[in-house]
C-alpha cells in the first residue's frame, strides 16, 4: 500500500466511527457513529466535556487506538486496512503528536528531544536534521535552551519542545490532546498562538482537543462532542 501521501493534501475523512469499551459485562460507547471531514490545513478544536470521547477520537486518528467499526481515511487511504508496519510509518511521517503531559524524554536535552523522531528518517542527512532542529527551536523560542534537560524547563517551554518535536518530521497533521491543560492561561495562550502561527505559515493541519472555552474560541473550527456523538462540527 502506498502511504506516500502528499504533504498538505492529507484530508481526514471519518465515516460511521464507533468505539465501544467492555467494562465487565457492560459495553460503554466512547464514540458513536462519528462522521467527520477535516480539510488539509485546518485548525480544528475537538471540544467537549470530560468523557465525551475527545481523546478517543484523536487516538483513533493517530492509530494509537482502533475503532470498533467505521472507516478512517487519510488522503484517500483507508488506514484501518493497512498493516502495522505502515501504521508506524504513518505515525512517523504523516502525524505529529503533542501530549497534555509533554512526554519528553527526561535524559535527553531539548536538542535531542526535538531530534528524536528523525532517528527514523534515514533519508534526512545529519546536516539537515541539525538545521531542522535549530530552525524549530528558534521558531518556538528555545534556541537558547538547546542543551537544557526537560527538568530545567517550565511547563510552557516543555510544551514548546513537544511542538517542535511534533513538527520536526514535517508532518501534514498534528494531533494535540489537551495541549494547554497543564499550563496556566497565559502560557496556554502562548502555546496556542505558536500552533496558530505554524498552521498559517506551514499549512499544517492541527487537530487539538480542549474543554477550555478560551482555547476553543481560538480554533477556526470547533467539533463538539457529547457522549461520543458529534453535536456540532
Amino acid at each position, binding site marked *: 500500500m502506498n502511504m506516500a501521501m502528499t504533504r498538505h493534501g492529507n484530508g481526514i475523512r471519518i465515516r460511521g466511527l464507533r468505539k465501544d469499551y467492555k467494562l465487565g459485562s457492560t459495553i460503554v460507547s466512547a464514540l458513536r457513529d462519528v462522521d467527520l471531514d477535516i480539510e488539509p490545513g485546518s485548525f480544528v478544536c475537538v471540544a467537549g466535556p470530560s468523557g465525551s470521547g475527545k481523546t478517543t477520537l484523536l*487516538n483513533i486518528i*493517530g492509530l*494509537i*487506538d482502533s475503532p470498533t467499526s467505521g472507516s478512517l481515511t487519510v488522503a484517500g487511504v483507508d488506514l484501518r486496512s493497512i498493516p*502495522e*508496519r505502515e501504521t*508506524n*510509518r*504513518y*505515525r*512517523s*511521517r504523516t502525524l505529529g*503528536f503533542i*501530549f497534555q*503531559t509533554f*512526554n519528553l*524524554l*527526561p*535524559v*535527553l536535552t531539548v536538542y*535531542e528531544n526535538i*531530534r*528524536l*523522531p528523525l*532517528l*527514523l528518517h534515514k533519508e534526512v542527512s545529519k546536516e539537515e536534521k541539525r538545521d531542522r532542529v535549530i530552525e524549530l527551536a528558534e521558531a518556538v523560542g528555545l534556541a537558547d535552551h538547546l542543551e537544557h534537560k526537560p527538568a530545567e524547563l517550565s511547563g510552557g517551554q516543555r510544551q514548546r519542545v513537544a511542538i517542535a*518535536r511534533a513538527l520536526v*518530521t514535517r508532518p501534514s497533521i498534528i494531533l494535540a490532546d489537551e495541549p494547554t491543560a497543564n499550563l496556566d492561561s497565559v502560557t496556554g495562550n502562548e502555546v496556542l498562538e505558536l500552533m496558530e502561527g505554524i498552521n498559517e505559515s506551514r499549512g499544517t493541519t492541527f487537530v487539538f482537543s480542549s474543554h477550555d472555552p478560551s482555547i476553543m474560541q481560538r480554533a477556526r473550527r470547533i467539533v463538539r462532542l457529547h457522549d461520543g456523538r458529534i453535536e456540532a462540527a
Partner: protein
Amino acid sequence: MGRLGLCLKNLGRHGWRTRVILFIALFGAFLTFVSENIIEDISIKQSEMFGRSSVGHFRILNAGIETENTFGYYFYEPSEMLGPEAIASVKAFLATLPEVTGARERIVFNGVYYNDEDAERGFNGIAMDMADFDRDFTDLYYAKGARLASGEADACAASWYEYEQEKSVDIGSRYVFLLPNRNGEFVDRYLSVKGGIDFKTMPKETMGFNAMFFDLAGFRAAVGYDEPAASEVIGFLADSRTMGKVIPKIETFLAASHPELKVVSWREYAPIMSEMVIGFDAMMKAVETILIVICVLLVFKLTTFSIIERYSEIGTMRALGFTRTDIALQFALEGFLVIAAGAAAGCLLGAGLIALLHETGIRNSLTFFEYVIGHGFNPSLHADKISRVVAVFAAVAALSPLLPAIRGGRLSILKTLEKR
C-alpha cells in the same frame, strides 16, 4: 545522537539498578575469567610439574596386582615384575603415542630401615632413574641436602611429607636399610640419606617422610638384581587431560601383546586426587553458573522494572513512529551495554590479577599446594578461555534482557500512554 547514544543516556537514569547489574556482571566475569584461566593453568601444571608425579602419568604393571586406593605403593610377588623384554616392548609402544612424552621403568617396593634407636621402621620405596627425576618431578626435589646421582648405589633420598618424628631420618646420616632383591628376599645395606624432596619447605633438618627414593641402577646394583626387572613402567603425559584418550590405546595394545599386564591411572590408585580435581572443577563451575544465573535473573528483573517505569516513554516513542522492534532493541541494547561493560571490566580485572600472579607467583609458603604454586605456578592468559568467557557473557548480555525487552516492545501504545 543515534540509537546507541539514546541507550547510553538511558543507562545513567537507573542509578543503583545499573550499578547492581554492572557489579554482578563484573564480579561474575571476573571470577569466571580468573577461574577459567587458572583451571587451565592447573591442568597444564598438573602435566608439567607436580601433577606429572601425581596426575599426569599412568602405570603399566601386572594385571594381578591390586592397585586400587594404594596411592601407588602396592604389594606384589617377585614373579609379577616385568622382565626386560616386556619393559622394552611396552616402552617401544609408548614411544609411538604422541600424547606420551616419556616412559621408564620403576621398582615400587616396601622396605625397612633402623633408626638411631635401632627401632625398625617400614617405608615405601621407589627406585627410578634419577637422571630423569628432574624432568619428571621438576623442582620438587632436593630441597634439602645433595642430589642423588644417577647410578649411585649407596645413597637414597627421602620425600619429606609427613611430620611424623617416628618415621624420620637426618640428612647426611647413614642407616641400615632392608631392601628387597629380585627374588623378594630382604638384604641389609648401610646407606646414607643424601637429601630429600621437601614438599613443605619447612626449615627442619629432621622430618618424617612418606617415601624413600633410590636410583634404579644403583638400587639394582645394591641389592644384586640378576636381571633388569621392574615392578612397573610409568608413562608421562604432555597434557594430563589426554588421559582418557591414551588409556584405551594402551589397553588395546596390552590386550593384544601383553595380556598379563594392565594400565592404571591415578584415578584408580589415588581416587581422592580424582575426586579433589573433579570436585574443585565442579565447585568453580557451580560458582560460575550460579553467578551467571543470578546475573541473568537480575538483569531480567531490573529490565522489567525499567520497562514498567518507562511505560510513558514507550508510548511516546511508539506514537512517534518507533516500531515494536525498535523499542525491544532499545531495552535489549541497554541491558547488553550494562552487562557488557561490567563483564569487560571484570575480564580486565581478571586479566590484571593473572598478569600480577604471572609476574610474582606466591612465595614463602608453607603448605604443599602453596609450595607448588610458589615454585612455578605463574598462571597466564589463554586465548581459548578468554574467548569462552567473552562468549558466555556476550550471550548473557544479549539474552537476559531480551525477553523483558520483547515484552516492552509488545505493549499497547494506548495502555503505555494511559500510564502517564
